[in-house]
């Protein structure tokens, strides 16, 4: 059992939690993830590590309530326990040798982008961050991004905060103005990562994307998290849990990943609704 040390509501659907898991806290690096089960009957879900504190043994997770499991997790309070919490899994994001990076985060993906931006800043890298949200009321981690970015460009779809438009708009402007980056690291909805990659392509800037497909064990056993890369004209199957979650954006078959991501959409909707009903009735 793993104790919840801290809980902070970041916006109506996004929650931050510090979970006591000293073995994970000692090891986890930006880009890696954990697998948790809320209770003994729960499903296993992967969540990216948003931060660690080796002294307190805390691992920070930030999650959006999107389905039954994240809903149940969001109901847990400080001092309560999570059944299982295993990690760190996946390969850390490669940060060495980067001098100037553009971080592009979308929605709750910003929670994963933030520790990477922070780590890069600490390594002396110049960090330009672009964050994108639907509207002002769901903006998260603004102060955190400001603290670790040389420049922060905030976008909202409806223009209620920062600039109006999606994240590719300022990215394209910068690239067209001749600004160069060693790498673009993008984390968010698959469709956003696809368009960030397409935007960067004419300029030849390397793009790293962080994939978060459906997973079960997370340790290289079930193969559920597979995705297809196009490598030198050949289609290659890779597994996000052990080969990723970071991949070269130019190689990923995003359309396939999006389709696979919707495999259980109906089931999830139903499960979420019944979980909500269960708790609102009780």
């Amino acid at each position, binding site marked *: 059992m793993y104790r919840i040390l801290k809980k902070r509501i970041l916006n109506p659907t996004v929650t931050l939690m510090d979970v006591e898991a000293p073995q994970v806290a000692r090891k986890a690096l930006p880009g890696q993830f954990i697998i948790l089960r809320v209770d003994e009957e729960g499903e296993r879900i992967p969540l990216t590590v948003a931060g660690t504190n080796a002294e307190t043994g805390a691992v920070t997770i930030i999650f959006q309530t999107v389905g039954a499991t994240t809903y149940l997790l969001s109901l847990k309070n400080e001092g309560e326990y999570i059944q299982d919490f295993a990690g760190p899994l996946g390969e850390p994001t490669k940060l060495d040798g980067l001098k100037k990076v553009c971080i592009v985060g979308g929605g709750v993906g910003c929670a994963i982008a933030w520790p990477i931006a922070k780590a890069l800043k600490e390594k002396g890298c110049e960090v330009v961050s672009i964050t994108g949200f639907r509207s002002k009321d769901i903006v998260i981690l603004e102060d955190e991004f400001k603290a670790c970015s040389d420049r922060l460009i905030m976008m909202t779809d409806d223009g209620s905060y920062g600039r109006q438009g999606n994240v590719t708009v300022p990215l394209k402007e910068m690239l067209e103005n001749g600004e160069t980056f060693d790498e673009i690291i993008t984390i968010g909805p698959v469709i956003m990562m696809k368009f960030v990659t397409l935007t960067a392509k004419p300029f030849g800037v390397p793009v790293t994307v962080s994939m978060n497909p459906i997973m079960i064990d997370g340790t290289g*056993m079930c193969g559920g998290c597979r995705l297809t890369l196009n490598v030198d004209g050949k289609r290659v199957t890779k597994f996000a849990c052990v080969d990723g979650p970071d991949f070269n954006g130019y190689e990923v078959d995003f359309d396939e990943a999006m389709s696979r991501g919707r495999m259980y959409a109906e089931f999830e909707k139903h499960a979420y609704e019944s979980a909500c009903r269960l708790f609102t009735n009780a």
Partner: protein
Amino acid sequence: MALNPHKHPMPVQDPALRAHNFNEVALGYTPEIAFEEAARCLNCKNAPCVQGCPVNIDIPGFISKLKQRDVEGAYKVISASSSLPAVCGRVCPQETQCESKCTMGIKFEPVGIGRLERFAADTHNANPKGETKKPVPNGHRVAVVGSGPSSLTCAGDLAKRGFAVTVFEALHTAGGVLVYGIPEFRLPKRIVASEVEGLKALGVDIQTNVIIGKTLTVDELFEEGYEAVYIGSGAGLPNFMNIPGEALKGVYSANEFLTRSNLMKAYRDEPVTPIMKGGRVAVVGGGNVAMDAARTALRLGAEKVYIVYRRSMQELPARREEVEHAEEEGIDFRLLNNPVEILGYTNPENPRDPRNGCVTGMRCIRMELGEPDAKGRRRPVPVPGSEFTLDVDTVVIAIGTSPNPLIKNTTRGLSVNDHGGIIIDENAMTTREKVYAGGDAVTGAATVISAMGAGKKAAASIEKALLGQ
């Protein structure tokens, strides 16, 4: 009394009934049947059956006890060699091991050794056990990676000899393939849980949610004071066929399909982990895992389940009893067929149609058997122009796995072969001193009992290395 030429049949659940439930198929011998079956054993002096057993159980010894109606005595004889008797009695391919060597089998049917083993173990487990006597500690610590059959065997053998053993399991439940892979109807989870409890009673410490190679490395295990490490991390990433359509919605690896159903209990009416239920299912492959997946699909409510295998029944590697059970339950065996493409749905009008990307069928080609290959198995060759489409909406690929890559990627000095299997010497030691390995992590997908044999051998080597005997 004349010798009964036939093995006593195993009482089973009615096929029509069991095809729709997850209860155990084989019900086990009653004491009367067991004692009569035991009477068929000739108690051969040279005991060829023992040579056929990867863990060398004293088979005539335990059957003799059964002849005397001393079931607990029989159990003791078995458990001297095997840490998991109730498991082996259920999942071992006895027809290619102990029973294949049985003298009775030369003229008649061999003795039902596996069934008797199960009877002894189940009878023992059904009775309340006294306090397990913990062995006297010998002061040495060993870490065991994984908690599948090879690891549990290694841990059990070492614990019995006084070693302080810690088992590290990556998942949330101990048992490895016995809990995520083998379905409830073939190996009830309570059996595995009870074997694991037995090890705990011996003093084995089981830590779940620890991924060796990630949470802790092998180096750190040594730093923490473990003097030897056994790696039984098991089967890893599933193999795919590399044909078009394998990423469509409705295509599973057998590992994923079975893990969803078994470990995550997706077979229940209101599961929290989803799985595709019902419809028409093709399972590709001919091993035990393929049989398990096909029969699981049936029990999940599929209206039609095919086994698609590229060779013939003769080459089909699954345990014979499972094949017979599958046939009785109505699994349709499409032998000498090989998939060439999985077909998917596309709505040209609506890119947001949720059915887009779902499986609609599988293109197959008929095969015929050609010349024998290096292993002596006749190689299947496609028959030109014989393609046809199988009307299915779920495809489960059960064509094997490659060893888990996590440990080899994170452990210095560990050599692996071309298939990713950890290389070991005749003492089960890897290329790194005091690090041993066995089971699927070494061999690639194999049987529970061969994994147990490997765990047993490693335990003996570790004992020798640490105690210098």
